[in-house]
């Protein structure tokens, strides 16, 4: 029983300024008044401002997101919940999702990234799934930008510091550097959890009279909606009320994780949701919205960490490591006992009502009374103006004839391998525990990570990909390639895609160019999802990513999950033995537009990105996967950033053993830099024993996939006739030091 509390502070009058300070437009405010039939008080204004924010309401993106395919026989839970859930057979299911934590990570890289990981972990175990693997997708400014080293170190340490402590392995990710992120880095965190079909929970409130329980950490003034700052003036104790950066407590998260999973063994829970953005407000109103019921909260019962907190602050606090659950009446004691075992608070803070109202009391007085629908389904939806910029044609114009070929392509290859976008990411993933839970079969360093599922013969493959340069030059193609590359990475380890999640990182939706980019990226993603038969089961949109006033490149990142029916077939990208043949699946064209080569060597980000023929993409992936399942291959590596030259070099040098050279004698007759560095899509380079070539050719023919034997593995030199030849050790050194030596 919470003690009666007085609202410690007189609430300010709701003025036009205060409304604006809460990021609500005059029209939106008018809509609020209409929905309420009266003016909102200060607390209600705060509630509306967070629930109608882009982040919670998806008001600018919802219209377009509807276009993504979300169905499939394997999909047990599509978008709309805390995470998507997909069937993987044997009565098992996986829940996964990706979340962005871009702005907090720029302000305080360690805590921003750490709490990003904490949030995505909660999204997963909220569903009843035990998190077993994480990925992260990172974008930083130019490697030599003064802040980049500090931000990179902090973000990576934060991701590791949190994930390692909770005991979830970080098995992969990606990391790119470009000026367009100088003042707006991207930190997208992905987590996958495993559960059974019988044990899937959702964020729904049902059963009139059922108790609403608050579990986990106490509430402080963490990350309270920036609006409070804007409305500081009326506050006495200013200093103490300044919204603070959220600090993560991974140990409490671990306790919360174990306590929730233990509780979920019982059938005490009706619905459960983590308190993420807009904390108590969004979790309670969203759960009520899904259940078509009302919720009454007594804020004076909420466990507090700080003194003199107002209803406004309690409702809007974003303190970490908290969950809200609706329990079956009568199970409160059992639930409290379980949380007590883990030294966590579990408090009844309200109950489910039949009036479809979101009501908050504080010390007996009602401080908020809002129809739940007004906060959820009746929130504004915009179809914002979208228009491609006049400059786009200019941007796409690239005259190859005017691009001089480098004299020494060997030197150029080394430069590319040393580019932080291509170089070894070991400096990053060494700081992540990628072994815990003892499932990691293919660790970071391959095209996709592979983990085993104990007690089955199966494996899971995970990857995250996205090339924002392509999206900038052609949003449609870039969106399609993001999905295609992720699926290709899965094919290269022998996995069949079962679903994807995404983070859509864009500039301001109020900018028509950004909305055009957004619409086209989604269009491209949709076509690729359909062609490759991969449903979107969850995702996240992050708008307002601007750097020095100009939007970042449109940056969709795609996290994709696949299944290997025979774990022992899991394939890796590096060469295994001298004498093996090297075979190229797919065809190389003169496509240097948007390539890493064009940017690094010629300082250009222009042209059209490589074209993608989704039928061919599907065929190449199918061919590779079947060859792997038949056990014909010794290695398979997808060709992406840096093209064929870089992919071949990686096959030679990225393995755990010492590098293996190669000799390439047979290839397309196009200009040398295009042959080596063109980023033509739908290509995979494989190696195999000569005796298996016939069978591979037979499979390729069946899939209608162009196949070319281009050379063979062996020796200590890396030779591509007649273009270049150098010691493979030199390539390895360039690749190994490219990032590591520059962050020291």
């Amino acid at each position, binding site marked *: 029983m919470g003690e009666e509390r007085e609202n410690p502070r007189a609430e300010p009058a709701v003025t036009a300024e205060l409304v604006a300070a809460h990021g609500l437009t005059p029209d939106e405010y008018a809509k609020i008044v209409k929905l309420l039939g009266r003016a909102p008080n200060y607390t209600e204004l705060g509630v509306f401002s967070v629930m109608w924010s882009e982040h919670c309401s998806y008001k600018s993106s919802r219209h377009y997101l509807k276009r993504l395919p979300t169905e499939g026989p394997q999909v047990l839970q599509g978008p709309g919940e805390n995470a998507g859930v997909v069937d993987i057979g044997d009565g098992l299911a996986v829940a996964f999702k990706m979340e962005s934590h871009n702005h907090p990570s720029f302000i305080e890289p360690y805590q921003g990234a750490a709490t990003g990981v904490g949030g995505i972990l909660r999204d997963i175990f909220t569903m009843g799934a035990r998190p077993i693997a994480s990925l992260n997708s990172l974008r930083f400014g130019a490697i030599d930008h003064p802040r980049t080293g500090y931000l990179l170190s902090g973000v990576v*340490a934060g991701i*590791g*510091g949190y994930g*390692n*402590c*909770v*005991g979830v392995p970080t098995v992969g990710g990606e990391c790119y550097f470009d000026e367009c992120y100088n003042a707006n880095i991207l930190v997208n965190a992905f987590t996958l959890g495993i559960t059974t079909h019988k044990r899937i929970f959702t964020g729904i409130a049902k059963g009139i009279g059922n108790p609403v329980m608050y579990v986990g950490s106490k509430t402080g003034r963490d990350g309270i909606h920036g609006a409070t700052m804007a409305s500081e003036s009326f506050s006495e104790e200013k200093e103490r009320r300044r919204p603070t950066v959220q600090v993560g*407590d*991974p*140990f*409490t998260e*671990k*306790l919360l994780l*174990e306590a929730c999973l233990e509780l979920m063994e019982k059938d005490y829970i009706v619905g459960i949701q983590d308190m993420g953005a807009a904390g108590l407000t969004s979790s309670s109103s969203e759960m009520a919205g899904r259940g078509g019921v009302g919720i009454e909260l007594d804020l004076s019962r909420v466990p507090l960490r700080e003194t003199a907190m107002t209803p406004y602050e309690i409702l809007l606090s974003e303190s970490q490591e908290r969950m809200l659950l609706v329990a079956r009446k009568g199970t409160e004691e059992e639930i409290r006992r379980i949380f007590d*075992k*883990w*030294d966590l608070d579990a408090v009844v803070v309200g109950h489910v009502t039949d009036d479809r109202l979101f009501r908050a009391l504080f010390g007996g007085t009602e401080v908020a009374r809002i129809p739940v629908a007004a906060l959820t389904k009746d929130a504004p939806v915009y179809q914002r103006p979208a228009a491609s910029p006049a400059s786009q044609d200019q941007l796409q114009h690239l005259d190859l004839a005017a691009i001089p070929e480098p004299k020494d392509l060997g030197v150029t290859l080394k430069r590319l391998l040393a580019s932080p976008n291509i170089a070894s990411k070991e400096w990053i*993933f*060494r*700081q*992540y*525990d*990628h*072994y*815990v*839970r*003892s*499932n*990691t*079969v293919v*660790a970071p360093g391959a095209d996709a990570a592979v983990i*085993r599922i*104990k007690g089955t013969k199966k494996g899971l493959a995970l990857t995250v990909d996205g090339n924002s340069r392509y999206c900038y030059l052609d949003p449609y193609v870039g969106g399609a390639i993001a999905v295609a590359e992720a699926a290709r990475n899965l094919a290269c380890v022998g996995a069949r895609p079962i679903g994807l999640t995404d983070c859509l990182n864009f500039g301001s939706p109020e900018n028509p160019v950004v909305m055009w980019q957004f619409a086209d990226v989604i269009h491209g993603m949709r076509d690729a999802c359909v062609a490759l038969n991969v449903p979107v089961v969850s995702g996240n949109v992050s708008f307002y990513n601007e750097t020095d006033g100009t939007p970042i490149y449109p940056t969709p990142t795609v996290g994709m999950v696949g299944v290997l029916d025979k*774990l*022992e077939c899991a394939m890796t990208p590096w060469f295994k033995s001298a004498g093996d043949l090297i075979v190229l699946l797919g065809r190389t064209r003169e496509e240097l537009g948007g390539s890493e080569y064009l940017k690094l060597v010629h300082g250009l980000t222009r042209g059209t990105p490589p074209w993608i023929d989704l039928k061919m993409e599907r065929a190449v992936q199918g061919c590779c996967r079947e060859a792997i399942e038949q056990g014909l291959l010794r290695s398979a590596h997808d060709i992406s950033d840096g093209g064929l030259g870089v992919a071949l070099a990686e096959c030679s040098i990225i393995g*755990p053993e010492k590098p293996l050279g190669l000799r390439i004698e047979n290839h397309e007759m196009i200009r040398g830099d295009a042959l080596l560095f063109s980023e033509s899509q739908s290509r995979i380079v494989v190696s195999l024993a000569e005796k298996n070539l016939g069978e591979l050719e037979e499979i390729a023919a069946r899939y209608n996939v162009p196949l070319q034997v281009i050379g063979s593995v062996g020796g200590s030199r890396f030779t591509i006739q007649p273009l270049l030849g150098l010691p493979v050790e030199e390539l390895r050194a360039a690749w190994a030091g490219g990032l590591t030596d520059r962050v020291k």
Partner: protein
Amino acid sequence: MRWGVIVFPGSCDDQDVFDSLARDMEQEVDFLWHKDDIKGGYDCLVLPGGFSYGDYLRCGAMARFSPVMGGVIDFARRGGLVLGICNGFQILCESGLLPGALVRNAGLKFVCRQVSLRVEETDTPFTREIKKGQLLKIPVKHGEGCYYADAVTLEQLRNNRQILLRYADAKGKPAPAANPNGSLDNIAGICNEARNVFGLMPHPEDACNKILGSDDGLKIFSSIAAACARGEARHG
């Protein structure tokens, strides 16, 4: 034989140890909750890796005071076999069952990678099935695994041959380059004078199956099993 795996609230590798013992070695294993006393007879107690109490203040500093530790200490005093892995090693040092301390990695960063370990002594229950000088491929993953002890203690460790594992290069040399955390003398694992308590930073449970890249971790677990099979009495 019967194994007990201690579960602290922030243990992360408890399930991994359990699985490698129960699945890969078909052993009899129980979890032992940190708030309970140890009941029943056990042949070996394992303190698994993780972040027992968040590893705030110092790794293992708070775990040492959890109720179960009294039982662990008695068990060890009675000659029972105690294995501390990573955070478990840190807890054993904090609670005085092993000498020295584990401090922040010299590189200041968490380090997760495969290392090769040279087995230095084989006259212990933990290494008896392994050849002296043999190399084991087992991963490390820790932020504070740099072993420290004062000169006198270090001398005693050497004289009593308590250093069981050293980080070594591919050729088996304990070279500085092979040292992932700056440990004195490349120390990866030590035992107590009575040779029944063993702490190591690497994670044998993550190297118990070829599919995971190595099964060298089994050699340590099966040494313990063999020692117990040889009828060293239960200590319960």
